[in-house]
């Protein structure tokens, strides 16, 4: 599907193009090399499984940033029926870097919010590379409050390189907007499911990231700052990003171990960008299964458990 090839995918890409060439050759020249093709296909399958079973943290991060990776809208289009998109924070404006709205997920009525990145240069600029301004967080909160009012669960899709660091963002209270969301989300009386679908950077991610279940897709990252930012500050050298990625332990395996996330959502082999439909189907089924569990809890228990979930996060000596 994608023409964009990451370094570690190259051997696989080369093998696959060789298979394609051989197929063409066999068809055009009417030469019988089916055995050889099958052999190579087996080899490719094995190689694919091998490459993707032992990705380094940096490689996973590259997949999370893959230009063909499905974004919030790609999932909404495939998972949600009758999506109504809400706009504006009712105070300043509308932020295209954040999507908020509601619709049906299978037989459930849900509210859904998520960061939105752009695909083409024009779209990227329009979506501000998935970096929201305060009005984005306030719009998201508006959608979540609406869900709470009508007792509908909330789905949050996280995919951001961070909240936007700019003059306007500071003037309109980026910090306050994020803080308010953390505060409010911790007490909404409906189930909240968070899914990291790409990048989860810092407060910009957490601003729509407090919930009852926090799930991470296989090829994503989530941490307190981007590896580039961390390297720039702690190594004083942003080219040390790969080292920083390793040090910060930001993959789903790391965060399962640390207790920051509850489970991993498998992606089609080779990454979600290989098969959008399959990735969306897995995501939809996972959310529906989680909702069945969460909807059993009365609101007070739900809130209590949510506060308790975050209360347990931390390591210290006493």
């Amino acid at each position, binding site marked *: 599907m994608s023409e964009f090839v990451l370094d570690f995918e190259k051997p696989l890409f080369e093998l696959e193009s060789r298979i394609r060439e051989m197929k063409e050759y066999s068809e055009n020249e009417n030469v019988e090399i089916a055995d050889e093709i099958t052999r190579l296909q087996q080899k490719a399958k094995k190689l694919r499984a091998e490459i993707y079973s032992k990705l380094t943290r940096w490689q996973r991060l590259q997949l999370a940033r893959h230009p063909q990776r499905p974004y919030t809208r790609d999932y909404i289009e495939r998972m949600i029926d009758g999506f109504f998109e809400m706009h504006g924070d009712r105070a300043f404006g509308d932020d295209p870097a954040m999507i908020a709205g509601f619709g049906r997920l299978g037989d459930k009525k849900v509210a859904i919010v998520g960061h939105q990145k752009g695909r083409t240069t024009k779209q990227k600029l329009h979506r501000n590379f998935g970096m929201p301004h305060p009005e984005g967080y306030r719009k998201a909160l508006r959608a979540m409050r609406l869900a709470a009012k009508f007792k509908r669960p909330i789905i949050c899709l996280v995919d951001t390189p961070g909240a936007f*660091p700019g003059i306007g963002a500071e003037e309109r209270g980026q910090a306050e907007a994020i803080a308010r969301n953390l505060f409010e989300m911790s007490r909404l009386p409906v189930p909240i499911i968070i899914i990291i679908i790409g990048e989860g950077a810092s407060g910009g991610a957490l601003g729509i990231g*407090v919930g009852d279940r926090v799930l991470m897709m296989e090829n994503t990252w989530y941490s*307190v700052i981007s590896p580039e930012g961390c390297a720039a500050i702690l190594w004083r050298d942003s080219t040390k990003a790969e080292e920083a990625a390793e040090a910060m332990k930001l993959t789903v395996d790391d965060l399962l171990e640390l207790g920051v996330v509850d489970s991993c959502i498998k992606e089609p082999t080779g990454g979600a960008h290989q098969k959008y439909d399959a990735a969306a189907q897995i995501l939809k089924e996972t959310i529906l299964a989680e909702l069945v569990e969460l909807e059993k809890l009365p609101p007070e228990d739900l809130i209590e458990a949510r506060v308790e979930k975050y209360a347990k996060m931390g390591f210290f000596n006493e």
Partner: protein
Amino acid sequence: MDWFKRAKEGLQPQKKKEMPELWLKCNACGEIIYKKELEKNFFVCTKCNFHFRMKSSEYIANLLDDNQFDEFNSNLTSVDFLKFKASKRYSDQIKTAIKKTGQNDAIRTGFGKIHGHEIVVCIMDFSFIGGSMGSVVGEKIARAVDEAIKRHLPLMIISASGGARMMEGAISLMQLAKTSSRLAKLSEAGLPYISLITDPTTGGVTASYAMLGDINIAEPGALIGFAGPRVIKQTIGQDLPDGFQRSDFQLHHGFLDAVVSRHDMKNKLKEVLDFTMDVQIAAEDLNGELMPETMPELAELPLPDSDNLADEAVNN
């Protein structure tokens, strides 16, 4: 040019003696101020009103009655659970910071009184790894909130922080959620939370508890923001306007209730506590030169006994 050469061998330069800093230079106006003088003036420049950064112990002395701070959970210390190493090892940084500051981490929590009002106070120390928030800061704030709820007391957090502690990875990010969700619980219990913001307060601390006060107060000239000025400058590629992200900027944009000089701070805090708490203050608890002229009237009020005090508190 012989006379420039040292005639006698074996002369050693005098060793620099460790001198206590008797004089300090104002960062803003350059005025040289006698330290004792500065201390007396709440570490505020006598010439230009610049507020020097203060240590937690100095906030205790300036704001709490009789310099009394009944500290709890001071034994909590940070752990290098990621085995994090950048240009320094995190484990070494922790040790160095403890030695340098005499504190166990970037925040102290405890009970005190402000003009007679009992209160739970959390005070950050910027000198401890940039006042960064890791597991210990998050846990101590969470427990402080629990104490406030349990004893039906107001809460104040004095912030001074560069943000979340990167050396604790995603766990440090989770402290934003941990502290904010606890404060939501405090709010639901009907108790006030005062956020006192000092220089500098940025990143994850601003994006969580510093901005969540029922009342947000800042000291003059404090840098308060989400992204640091350097990051913003790099992102947008232009210089930042004067006063950007300083206290007055935040007041102007609607994120602070007041910018208060240290000279008036204690009285201002009392006003908030008087309004939000139903507790009557015993006259003998009112002391100090900071009291406004109107205060003596309070002495006429009947003194509540402790039982009444508790009843009133429960009804609050």
